[in-house]
């Protein structure tokens, strides 16, 4: 056996090392040492990011083509790990709570194992590897959602998630069996030569596949679990679910569409076209009537998924670059809002939008940060969100989807309305007993500062987008 192929799996191997260390720490650390659990976890994950920041130069594959490596993978995995680090920092306050204190080791281990599953899913070169990665990402995720197991909402959300996850992965598996019947192989490299346009069996396989992966990204006909799960899950898990889990699924969708289903390009473009239109529209319309902050963000994230798919539909290298950039920008903005929601929920147990009335009077800093993040999500010019939206629109426009871009633009106006509704509630609406001034802990401060730098900096420094573009052509 050639052991040098493990060099391609640098990210996965170092993540497994991090997981092993944390697991042992959880086992043997004394009561006093366990107080520093979050510090250890954050430092280890930070070291992991720095160790893997520079891509290995050559693309290659390991295990007979099961595992695939391109320099772009390193960028994507670094973005996902970076988001996980921020989630770790924001989760600290929740993990210090009396009923979760004794199981914080489990939280870190489960989150990292979902991350490992996503890494394998992104880097897969065979549908078996893809399926294993997908399941490895979704099974621990359901346990994370039901993490507050004595709280009714969390348990309910966990049940809803695992049942829909099983249903969707069953459909995905059925689709893969059709693909195997039509092609006789499941290697990404061999399938395109065997696909023909207009074969109904392959089309059925593709539709089942989209249904399975659409559940992960929460595209509209498969989105029904999203709002309930986002509301019921513990807030740090919700933020992880809304950015990291969604982002990884989008990356893998684009790579599979580009690599595997390339001969069926007209068919899948039509399907994705329809999905984008209903995803953006229905996500926006339902977001208008939400009163709970977490449910509101759930529908906002559904419509954002539609915008992310705009980068997918072209199936080009520019689309890939704009998509990665969009996910990065969306990640910092969303994590900022969830960080604020999380700390307010931990301190006061308030998540309703009415509770946020008059927040500016008592917590000007948190309000300001939330406002910037909402502006970024809505795509208002000086912030990163504007540029990321501009790039995905441009990618779709260049591929010739002009009507689609117009529909998406119109929807941006609707989304502006409900994002500004929250801003109005915080600044203008009167409230007799607003949320009292909240003392943020050190971790939350650091994570929110990173997000703030991201929201402002990612837009005005062009180097980030240029780096991503430079690597995306190696896809």
């Amino acid at each position, binding site marked *: 056996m050639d052991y040098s192929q493990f060099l391609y799996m640098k990210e996965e191997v170092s993540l497994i090392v991090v997981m092993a260390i944390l697991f042992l720490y959880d086992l043997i650390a004394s009561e006093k040492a366990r107080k520093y659990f979050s510090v250890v976890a954050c430092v280890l994950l930070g070291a992991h990011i720095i160790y893997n920041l520079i891509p290995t130069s050559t693309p290659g594959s390991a295990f007979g083509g099961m595992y695939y490596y391109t320099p772009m993978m390193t960028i994507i995995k670094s973005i996902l790990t970076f988001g996980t680090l921020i989630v770790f920092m924001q989760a600290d306050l929740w993990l210090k709570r009396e009923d979760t204190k004794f199981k914080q080791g489990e939280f870190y281990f489960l989150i990292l194992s979902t991350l490992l599953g996503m890494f394998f899913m992104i880097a897969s070169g065979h549908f078996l590897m893809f399926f294993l990665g997908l399941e490895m990402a979704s099974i621990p995720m359901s346990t994370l959602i039901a993490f507050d197991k004595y709280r*009714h909402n969390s*348990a309910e959300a966990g*049940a809803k998630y*695992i*049942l829909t996850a*099983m249903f969707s992965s069953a459909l995905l598996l059925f689709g893969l*069996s059709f693909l*195997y019947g039509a092609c006789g192989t499941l290697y990404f490299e061999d399938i395109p030569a065997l696909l023909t346009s207009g074969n109904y069996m392959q089309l059925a396989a593709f539709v089942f596949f989209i249904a399975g992966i659409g559940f992960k990204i929460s595209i509209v006909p498969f989105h029904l679990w999203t709002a309930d799960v986002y509301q019921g899950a513990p807030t740090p898990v919700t933020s992880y679910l809304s950015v990291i889990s969604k982002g990884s699924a989008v990356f893998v969708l684009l790579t599979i569409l580009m690599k595997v289903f390339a001969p069926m390009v007209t068919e899948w473009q039509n399907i994705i076209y329809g999905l984008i239109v209903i995803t953006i529209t229905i996500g926006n319309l339902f977001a208008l009537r939400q009163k709970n902050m977490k449910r509101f963000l759930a529908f906002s994230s559904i419509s954002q998924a539609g915008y992310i798919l705009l980068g997918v539909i072209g199936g080009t290298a520019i689309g890939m670059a704009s998509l990665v950039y969009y996910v990065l920008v969306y990640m910092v903005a969303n994590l900022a809002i969830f960080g604020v929601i999380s700390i307010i929920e931990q301190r006061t147990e308030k998540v309703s939008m009415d509770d946020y009335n008059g927040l500016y009077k008592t917590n000007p800093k948190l309000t300001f940060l939330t406002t910037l993040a909402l502006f970024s999500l809505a795509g208002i010019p000086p912030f990163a969100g504007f540029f990321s939206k501009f790039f995905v629109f441009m990618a779709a426009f260049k591929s010739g989807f002009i009507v689609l871009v117009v529909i998406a633009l119109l929807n941006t106006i609707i989304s502006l309305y409900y994002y500004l509704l929250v801003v109005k509630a915080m600044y203008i609406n009167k409230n007799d007993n607003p949320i009292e001034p909240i003392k943020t802990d050190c971790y939350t401060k650091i994570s929110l500062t990173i997000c703030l730098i991201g929201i402002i900096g990612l837009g005005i420094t062009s180097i980030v987008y240029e780096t991503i573009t430079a690597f995306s052509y190696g896809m």
Partner: protein
Amino acid sequence: MGVELYLVISTIMLCAGIYGFLMRKNTLAMLISVELILNAADINFAVFNKFLFPNQLEGHFFTLFAIGIVAAETAIAIAIIINVYRNVQSLDVDKIDKMKH
């Protein structure tokens, strides 16, 4: 016995599974319905491998992996359902409706 006959069986299992998942009110019954779909997919893999591509083993291996993963998933699902039962004293999906709209 041709490949079509097996495909008819697996398609019936798929449809029964989807119908059961959407219509049954008991969470365990829903779980069993999902198992039906998964087994239909497994049958498909094995049949395609045996009849269409007899000189390779990819489909059989996929089936084995799928069975293993699904066992893990079912175990977690049952654990979560038990946890829900402790919270609401019922397995009925109509009772798990605290969060809606």
